[in-house]
Structure formats: C-alpha cells, structure tokens
C-alpha cells in the first residue's frame, strides 16, 4: 500500500507538470536509485513517528545515519546525525538530529565548541516547500555532501553522507516534491521552481535574494560555480607559478570579461558560509561589543549560509593533506591576528616596496604584500605602481620588462577602442541615439564628480575631459554594461593616482569586472549584496537585525550608496584611496566592505534603536554620516590614521566613531524639523 502511494507520487512527479528536458526521469541513475529506494521507503514506513507527541501521523520515507556536519570549519570537529524525510499531512519534511557525543579527534576545547553548536544545527521539521534548491557535491575524494538552500536565500551547512545514501535521498525527494535539475548546473536541483524570477525580484523586495539566487541559478554557468573562490578571492595567488606571457594575459582578461555568469549573488552567499564561524569570532573581537543577548540569540538561530562548495572541497582536502594556501588557513590566520590584536603599521614605503621585488621586478611574496597594505595602506607616491597589482592589472609575477611591454600594448589597444567613438561624426551621432544618450549621461556626471578636489576643480578642467573620454571608451569596451551612475565615482581617484589615460582605463575596467554586478541592469548584484549584508547583520547582531525587521528596514536600501560605490561618498578623497587599497587587497575577506557596513551600523546601533528610527529616518541618518566626515590636517599628515584604537590592527579610522559621527544636530531634529527657520505662508 505504501509502495502504491509512493509510486503514484513518483508517477505524478514524472508527469509533465513542466515538460522540462531536465526532468530527472531522463536520468537512468536516478531511475535505478528510485527503484531501489521505493522498497527502502516501504520498509521505513513502519518506523512511524518516534514519540514526538504530534497528533498528525508521521510517515518516514527516508532515513540515513551518519549524516554529518562540520560546524567549525577547522576540520577537527564533526557532528553526526540522522537525516530523515517524512510525510505529514501530505507534505514532505526534512529533519536532522545530531547524535549524542562528538565523533572527533579534536582537542577538548574544540569539542566543547562543538557541543555548543549541537542544538544550533538541529533541524526539527523543514517543509520542503521552503527549499529553493539542493546542491549536490560528489568530490572524487572524500564524502559526498549536499547543501540545502532555502527560498529565503539562507542555507544549512553541508551535510556529509558518511554512509552514502545521496542517490536514495534524491530519488525519494523526486517522488514527493517537484524537483528539476538546473539547466546550467547538473549538480543543482531546483525544488520549487518559479516562473519568472526577475519579476519576483522586482516586486518582492522584502527578500531580494530569493529571486536573485534563483535567477543566478538559471543563468549560472559552471565556471562561476566551481571557481568563484579562486577567481575572486585568490586570483592572484592562484596564478602563481604560471608563466605570464602576454597572450595568456590577454586571453585571461578576455575570458573574464566574457563571463556573464560570474554572478555575485552566488559568490556572496556561498562565501559567507566560509566565514560564518570565523565572522562570529573575529567580529566580536573586532568590535569588542558583547551585547548580552548577542551570542545567546545567535545560539537559537538554526540557519546557516550557503556553503561554498569549493571551499569545502578544499576543506576536505585539508583533512588529507593540509593546504597552506587555502582560504581556510587564510581565515584562520586572520582570525588569530584579529583576535589577538596587532599593532597598526606604517604605510608601505618606497624602501619596503623595493624589498618586495626581485631583481627583475617580480613581487616575490604577494600575500605578504597584500597583508602589508591591508594593515598599513600605501605611501601615496607608490599608489600609481602598487594599485595596478592590487587591481590585477599587473600580475604579481610579471617582470619590469613585461609590464613595460604590457603598458605599450594596452595603450595601443586603448586607443583603438577609443577611436570607435572618436570617429563618430556629428551626422552619424544624429542617427545613433544610444551613443548620444550615453555621452549625455557621462557628460552630465563627470562635471559633478569630485569637483572640489583640486585635480578636478575649475572650468574647462582637462582632467574632467579625460574622465569623460575614459568612461565613454569603457562604455564601448563593455557596451552591454554601458555607463552607469557611480562609475565616475570609481574612476576619479584612479585617474588621480595613475595620471595616465590608458592605465586608468585598464585599472578601471578590471575593477568593473569585480564590481560590475553592482551596476547590472537588473540590479541583481546590488540586491544580492544587500541580502548578504542583512544576513551578516542577522548573524553578528541579531538584536539590530530584529529591530530592522520590526521596522520594515530589512531591504537595507539605506546602505545602498555605501555598497554601490564602496563608501566613496562617505569619506574624503584621501581617505577613500586608503580604504579602497585596503579593500582591494582582499586580504581579510573579499567582502570586507560588507563587514565595514556592519561595523558602522554596530557603531550606531544604540542610537538607531534608542531613537526608534524608522526607515526614512534611518536613511536620512546614514546619508548624513557622509559629508560630516571631515578629515582634519593633523590626521592626514599622520598618513590618514587615527591612533586611538590599537585593538585590531585594522586601519583605525574605519573603527573610529568620531569620524563618522554627525557633528551638531541629531537625526530626529534634521528629520522632524525644518532646516530654515522661516515658515513660508502659502
């Protein structure tokens, strides 16, 4: 009888509810497994509800022991448990219950840590209708695992199947819920596919990432899925040892720019997993703010972020052969540093910079260099040179000669692209609306970009024209992305530092490859980042998160400007150069800017909550943090650092509240009261 039900369900799942080519019934593997597990499920159905005291009947259709999570990411601790699928009142649920005791070879302290997380990860009843997709990982070495991603964009940590059983799991799922293989990634199984993800992303901004994830899924190509970490996080290191001939360089560049699937939403979400534990530790030491409820509230939270498959593959590798270069050891190292504090360093000086280079001009230890910059910044005279490495325009292992050659080649290439629009005559322009519109938009923006900086000051400023030319050329180089407001904000400091049109163009172009998703037409990069930010706050400051939730502020649009142009409008021109070089090292985290958002929000949390700011007030408050940041001369001459908070070794101004504090008035007064005393009678 059970068997009948199961096969009826299977038949139903197989009926063309969606005539999708990727229906699992095509898959002989799955067909076989389905057959195997239908008997399995019939057998299991006897093991009804083990006294959970629930009234409705529970029908277990799948059960697997030794499904294990690795909560600390350190490779030493694991929690084994039992994964189940069960039917209750016609709906399928998933549960995971940890066993007693830790199967771990780890030290006592790690064991205690794991005990702490035992209950945290328990899943009592997860309705499959809440699941967006499940990603399956079948590494060549090590255990298979899955990552379950919820509609909300949240995900559970990976479940490793120590005893196998992954196939049966999917076969069982297929029988009870609508599940299809993603077009673009055969390891992704969409559980509740919805029709028009973009539409949803635009209309349901409450949870921008829901659709973004789905959207990304559907467009995702395998490259971005498998290489997100390396490419974005450690691109430069990964390239170590590879010969860097010009052709290779060029093809690499092309490849990157042609890769539309490099979708931030996935990257952002996936990489969060890697830092969840890490983030909790570091940020609490970073901010030294222990809210009584903070840790405790988190303890009740049961959801984790999307786990990065690559990182976990690495992590597994590490259990076999420790990999010094992996992100994992990286984060562990930073963890130590941040936890124990480290004296702030001087900016990278000319002599020091020389010591990083071998006789032919190669950077011998790029990681040490990035670390140095992360903790100290760069002496301004060196920026022109070092930024090119940080941005990825120069390979760390390139020689002086190669770089010179590159500059020449790239100049020629730049001129060629530039001539594409330079040669458009006014009669041609009349018939080229898109060009006119773009040019118009750029013309309008360059004259309102950093005009108070002497370099861009005054009428008929030549540098403003160079800004215009570079942006217009870029909009031809990347015609699909085009020009978007905010780009001029990024370019202005780059041109100021490079003082060279072609070099600025290429540095900007590479930066746009990192940040281009911010400017996507559908804004999905921004939605993903704001979602990621909200998850980070939820993780690091649950109380503030709750406050935002109650006050309808969860879309985090008040941080839009921070994220879109990486705090450009919040700091002075000098400060922003320092901040950006710190961010560009990707040393601590590729998403350091999001941590910075959290840091600032945490700084003001008591005011935000205390003054009961609503969305409007909060937006105003945050907008007004900018412009109030006046870096005085004294700080500038001390090379932009404020020496008041030696706790973390991070550039201290990032954490210095006075610099971010609106000076005179309170927010309430700016918002509630008029600025002019005069009340016009109408």
């Amino acid at each position: 009888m059970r068997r009948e039900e199961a096969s009826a369900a299977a038949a139903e799942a197989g009926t063309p509810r969606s005539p999708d080519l990727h229906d699992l019934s095509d898959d002989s593997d799955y067909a076989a497994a389905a057959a195997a597990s239908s008997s399995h499920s019939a057998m299991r159905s006897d093991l009804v509800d083990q006294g959970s005291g629930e009234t409705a009947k529970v029908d277990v259709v799948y059960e697997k022991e030794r499904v294990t999570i690795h909560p600390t990411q350190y490779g030493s601790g694991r929690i084994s448990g039992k994964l189940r699928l069960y039917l209750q009142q016609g709906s399928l649920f998933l549960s995971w219950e940890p066993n007693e005791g830790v199967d771990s070879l780890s030290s006592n302290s790690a064991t205690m840590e794991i005990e702490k997380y035992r209950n945290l990860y328990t899943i009592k009843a997860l309705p499959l209708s809440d699941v967006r997709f499940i990603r399956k990982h079948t590494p060549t070495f090590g255990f298979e695992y899955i990552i379950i991603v919820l509609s909300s964009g949240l995900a559970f940590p990976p479940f490793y199947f120590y005893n196998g059983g992954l196939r049966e799991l999917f076969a069982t799922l297929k029988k009870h819920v609508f599940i299809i293989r993603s077009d673009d990634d055969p390891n992704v199984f969409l559980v509740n596919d919805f029709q028009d993800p973009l539409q949803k992303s635009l209309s349901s901004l409450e949870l921008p990432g829901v659709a973004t994830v789905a959207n990304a899924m559907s467009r995702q190509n395998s490259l971005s899925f498998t290489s997100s970490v390396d490419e974005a996080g450690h691109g430069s290191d990964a390239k170590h040892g590879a010969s860097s001939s010009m052709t290779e360089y060029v093809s690499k560049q092309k490849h990157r720019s042609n890769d539309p699937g490099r979708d931030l939403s996935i990257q952002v979400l996936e990489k969060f997993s890697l830092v969840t534990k890490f983030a909790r530790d570091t940020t609490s030491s970073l901010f030294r703010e222990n809210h009584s409820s903070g840790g405790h509230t988190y303890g009740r939270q049961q959801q984790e972020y999307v786990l990065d498959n690559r990182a976990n593959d690495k992590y597994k590798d590490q259990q076999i052969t420790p990999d010094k270069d992996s992100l994992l050891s990286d984060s562990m190292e930073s963890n130590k540093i941040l936890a124990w504090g480290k004296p702030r360093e001087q900016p990278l000086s000319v002599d020091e910079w020389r010591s990083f280079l071998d006789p032919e001009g190669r950077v011998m230890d790029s990681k040490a260099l990035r670390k140095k910059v992360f903790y100290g910044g760069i002496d301004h005279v060196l920026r022109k040179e070092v930024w090119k490495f940080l941005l990825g325009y120069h390979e760390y292992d390139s020689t002086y000669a190669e770089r010179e050659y590159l500059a020449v080649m790239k100049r020629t290439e730049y001129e060629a692209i530039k001539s594409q629009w330079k040669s458009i005559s006014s009669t041609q322009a009349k018939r080229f609306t898109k060009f006119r519109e773009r040019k118009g938009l750029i013309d309008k923006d360059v004259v309102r970009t950093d005009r108070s900086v002497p370099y861009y000051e005054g009428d008929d400023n030549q540098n403003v024209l160079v800004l215009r030319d570079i942006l217009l050329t870029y909009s031809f180089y990347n015609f699909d992305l085009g020009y978007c407001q905010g780009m001029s904000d990024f370019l202005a400091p780059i041109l100021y530092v490079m003082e060279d049109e072609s070099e600025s163009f290429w540095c900007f172009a590479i930066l746009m490859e990192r940040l281009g998703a911010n400017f996507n037409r559908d804004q999905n990069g921004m939605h993903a980042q704001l979602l990621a930010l909200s998850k980070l706050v939820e993780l690091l400051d649950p109380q503030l998160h709750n406050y935002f939730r109650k006050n309808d502020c969860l879309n985090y649009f008040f941080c839009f400007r921070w994220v879109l142009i990486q705090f450009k409008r919040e700091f002075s021109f000098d400060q922003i150069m320092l901040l950006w070089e710190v961010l560009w090292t990707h040393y601590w985290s590729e998403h350091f800017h999001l941590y910075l958002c959290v840091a600032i929000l945490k700084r003001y949390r008591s005011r935000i909550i205390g003054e009961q700011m609503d969305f409007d007030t909060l937006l105003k408050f945050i907008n007004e943090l900018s412009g109030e940041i006046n870096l005085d001369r004294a700080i500038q001459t001390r090379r932009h650092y404020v020496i008041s908070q030696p706790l973390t070794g991070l550039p201290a101004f990032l954490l210095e509240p006075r610099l971010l504090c609106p000076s005179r008035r309170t927010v309430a007064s700016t918002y509630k009261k008029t600025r002019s005393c005069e009340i016009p009678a109408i």
Partner: protein
Amino acid sequence: MASRRRMLLKVIILGDSGVGKTSLMNQYVNKKFSNQYKATIGADFLTKEVQIDDRLFTLQIWDTAGQERFQSLGVAFYRGADCCVLVYDVNVTKSFERLNSWREEFLIQASPSDPENFPFVVLGNKIDVDGGNSRTVSEKKAKAWCASKGNIPYFETSAKEGFNVEAAFECIARNAIKNEPEEEIYLPDTIDVGGAGRQQRSSGCEC
C-alpha cells in the same frame, strides 16, 4: 480652527538624470543653487515646513537617482507618496519624452489606491540656459501633454535662478494635501468637519 499638529506630506521627484531634480529640491528647501551637487546615488530627502491655509505641514521631498536601471529601487521609496513631481529639461527632448514612462513606472511601483486621480505636477526646468535659445521642447507641447494626462499642473522653472520654484512647490504641496484622506487632515480634536475650507481645497490650486 485647524489643528496645530503637523502632517507629513510625501513628495517624490522623478525624471531623467541631470534634469535638475536635486537642484530644484535644494533651491526650494535651502534657497541655494550649486553646480557642485554630485549625481544622486540611491535616494535622499529633504524636509521643509510649510503653512497652507493656517495649517502646518512637513513636506518631505524625495530625490532619487535618475538612471533607468535604478528604477527597481523605487518600490521602497515611492510607497505612501502624496504627490509625484515629474521633471524634464526643456533643452533635452528625450527627457520630455520619458515623462510618460516615469509616470507609469511610478504608478506601478507606488501603486496608489486611486491611480486615476493621483496628483502629479510637471516641471520644465533649466529655462535659463542660453537665454532660452537652446530650448527644444516648447511650452505649448508640454502643456498639451499635461492636458492629455488629466490636466496635470505645469510649471517652467529654473533651479539655477530660483525662478518659479516656490510657486511650483506650493502647487505641489496643495496637491499633496488633496491626496490625503480627509479624516487624516482633520485630527480628532478638530470640530470643523466638512467646512468650507475643504471645499475650496478640493478644487485644487489654480496652477
């Protein structure tokens, strides 16, 4: 007598990038024009108190980024708007042609309860440029469009010179009040229910 308590009127300024939205808002609120305003990223607002027929209102004026691709943000900002100001640059035909899509986009995203009668005001800005010689959209053409959309009030302004800005915002404020549900206009302690004042207002400003 009308209540002393102030009411918040939410006004959204829309239009293509560079038409002068930020400048108009600043001219009205701060009586200043600067050509150093930066392109708006995200959204911001300014508030100003106005007195209309013996009552005080707080006008909350929202300024948003003009580039098309940021329009999806509107949902968060347009909600609860009482009046929408559509701005174009009289020297840029395209910015005029886009008024219609701005209007429609607003109605979709703000989804006001009565879209047919939701108050808009149109401003043709930058009439000072080149003594009016570079103008490409005539007043007549603009007024015709406004008429076709249910008699939208129309003003020609210069944020730079401060020309007509005050008058435009007065009309905007009055239209915003009209949009408010009546019971909210008259607070509980107000006795004057359905007085003559309201009759007057509902006929709108003579703009």
